[in-house]
C-alpha cells in the first residue's frame, strides 16, 4: 500500500514541477498571450480532480459550464455525482440475441456527445462467421453493411470499454488523468489528459478513442446533461471512452445502449446486488470475459443465453 502511495506522490510532483516549469520557463513563450484571461490560467493550474475539495470542484464546474455555454450557446449542466456506496457496476451482453444492428453505437454517440466529424464511436460491433475461430478480435469485420441483420451464418459482438478491475490503461498513464472509481468505472479527466495515448496502446480491447482534431457537434445535438468524468464536451488532443454512461447510471438510470437495444441483449446492474439482472446472468449462464488470460478482470461479461 505504502509503496503505491509513495509512487503516486512522486508522479504528482513530476507533473506539478512540469507545469510550473512550463509556466515560468520556455513553454510560456509558446503560450498564446492573448489567452491571458483568468479562465485560461485557472484551467492551467487546475488541481488533480481527486485532490480538490467540493468548493474547488464547484468552481471548476462553473468555469467549464460557462465555457460550454459560450461555445454551444446553450446551457450545459456538468455534474459531479459521486459513486454510490455498495455499488460495483457490471455489464452483460447476450451474444445469442445480438443482431448487429448498431442501434447501441449511435445511441451512445447521442448520449455521450461524441464528435460527428471526425467521427468517434465508443462502441464497435464486430462480426464473426459462425463456427470459425473467433475470439481473435483482429480477425473480425467491423464494416459489414448488409441490407438486413442478422445475417445467416454470422454472429455479432459489440466491444466497448470493459471497465477492468485491473486496468492496464490506468497504470500506463503518466499524469494520472485516468483512474478507477469506487463503483468500478474507469474515468478520464479531460483537463489532465495530455494526449500521449499510452493508455490506448495499453488497452487490450482497443476501447479508447483519441480526438485528433477538435470534436465537432452542432449545438442542437449537444446533450446538455453531462458529468465531469463522462460526456461533457471534450477537447482536441484528449482521449475518451465508454464510462457506462456515468451521468445516467450514477442517477440510477440504465446506460443509453441498454435502453436502445431492440433485442434486449444488453444487461446492466450492481454486481453487489444479488437481485440484479447482471447477477442473474452470471449465476445462471456461462459467462466469459474477453482476453481473460491477461488478468485485466473486466466487469463486462459476455454470454450465450440459449443455443450454441
Amino acid at each position, binding site marked *: 500500500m505504502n509503496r503505491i502511495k509513495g509512487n503516486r506522490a512522486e508522479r504528482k510532483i513530476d507533473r506539478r514541477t512540469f507545469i510550473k516549469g512550463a509556466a515560468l520557463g520556455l513553454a510560456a513563450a509558446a503560450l498564446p498571450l492573448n489567452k491571458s484571461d483568468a479562465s485560461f490560467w485557472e484551467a492551467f493550474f487546475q488541481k488533480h480532480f481527486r485532490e480538490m475539495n467540493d468548493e474547488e470542484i464547484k468552481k471548476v464546474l462553473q468555469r467549464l459550464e460557462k465555457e460550454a455555454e459560450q461555445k454551444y450557446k446553450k446551457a450545459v449542466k456538468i455534474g459531479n455525482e459521486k459513486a454510490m456506496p455498495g455499488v460495483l457496476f457490471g455489464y452483460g451482453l447476450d451474444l445469442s440475441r445480438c443482431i448487429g444492428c448498431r442501434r447501441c453505437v449511435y445511441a451512445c454517440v447521442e448520449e455521450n456527445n461524441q464528435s460527428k466529424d471526425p467521427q468517434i464511436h465508443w462502441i464497435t460491433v464486430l462480426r464473426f462467421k459462425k463456427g470459425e475461430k473467433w475470439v481473435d478480435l483482429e480477425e473480425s469485420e467491423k464494416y459489414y453493411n448488409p441490407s438486413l441483420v442478422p445475417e445467416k451464418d454470422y454472429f455479432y459482438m459489440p466491444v466497448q470499454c470493459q471497465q477492468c478491475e485491473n486496468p492496464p490503461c490506468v497504470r500506463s498513464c503518466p499524469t494520472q488523468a485516468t483512474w478507477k472509481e469506487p463503483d468500478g468505472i474507469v474515468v478520464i479527466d479531460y483537463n489532465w489528459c495530455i494526449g500521449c495515448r499510452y493508455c490506448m496502446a495499453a488497452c487490450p480491447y482497443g476501447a479508447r478513442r483519441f480526438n485528433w482534431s477538435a470534436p465537432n457537434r452542432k449545438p442542437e445535438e449537444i446533450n446538455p446533461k453531462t458529468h465531469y468524468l463522462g460526456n461533457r464536451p471534450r477537447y482536441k488532443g484528449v482521449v475518451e471512452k465508454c464510462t457506462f454512461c456515468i451521468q445516467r*447510471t450514477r442517477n440510477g438510470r440504465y446506460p443509453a445502449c441498454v435502453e436502445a437495444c431492440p*433485442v434486449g441483449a444488453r444487461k446492466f*446492474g450492481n454486481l453487489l446486488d444479488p437481485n440484479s439482472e447482471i447477477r442473474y446472468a452470471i449465476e445462471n449462464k456461462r459467462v466469459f470475459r474477453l482476453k481473460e488470460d491477461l488478468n485485466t478482470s473486466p466487469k463486462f461479461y459476455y454470454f450465450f443465453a440459449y443455443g450454441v
Partner: protein
Amino acid sequence: MKDKKRRLSLIVALFFLLSLLFSFAESAEQDIPKKFFVPPPPFTPGIFPCSQCHQGMPVNRKPRKLEQMHQEIQLKHMPGGWCFDCHNPDNRDKLRLANGQLISFEESYYLCAQCHGVVFREWKAGLHGKRTGMWNGEKQYLLCVHCHWPHEPRFKPIQPLPPPMRPSDIK
C-alpha cells in the same frame, strides 16, 4: 408385515407428491396477481377496443381463412392452434388462459408464460427481453408482444445503422 410397510411408503410418497403439487399451486398463485409495469400494448391504432365491432357479432369458432377482416393475420405459431387458444370469444377485449381465466392485454405475458415458462422466468429476472427505467429502482418491462408479433413470433430482421468510417475515408 411387508404389505404394511409398502402401504406406509406409498402413503409417504403420496403425501410428498401432494405437498409438491401444493407448492406448485402456491407459486402459481403468487405469480398471477403480480402486475408488471409495462408500456401500452402495441396495437394498430383504432383496433382497440375490439368490442367496437365484436360486441353483438356472432362468434365463428371454425378455423378458416379470414376474408372480411384481419386478413393480414396468418398464424405461424403453435402448429394446429387457432385464435381462441389466446383470444376470448365472448369478450374480445380480453385474452383467455387455458384454465378459462381472463386477462387484459397489458398482462399478455401470462398468456405466453403458459407455454414458454423458462423464457417467462428469465423475462421476469430481466434477462430475456428488456427493462428500462432505474437499475436500482422502478423498471418498465417490454411486453413479449412488443418484440414478438404473437401470430408470427419470430423476431424480424431489421436494417443496420451505417458502419463506422474507414480510416481512409477520414480527411
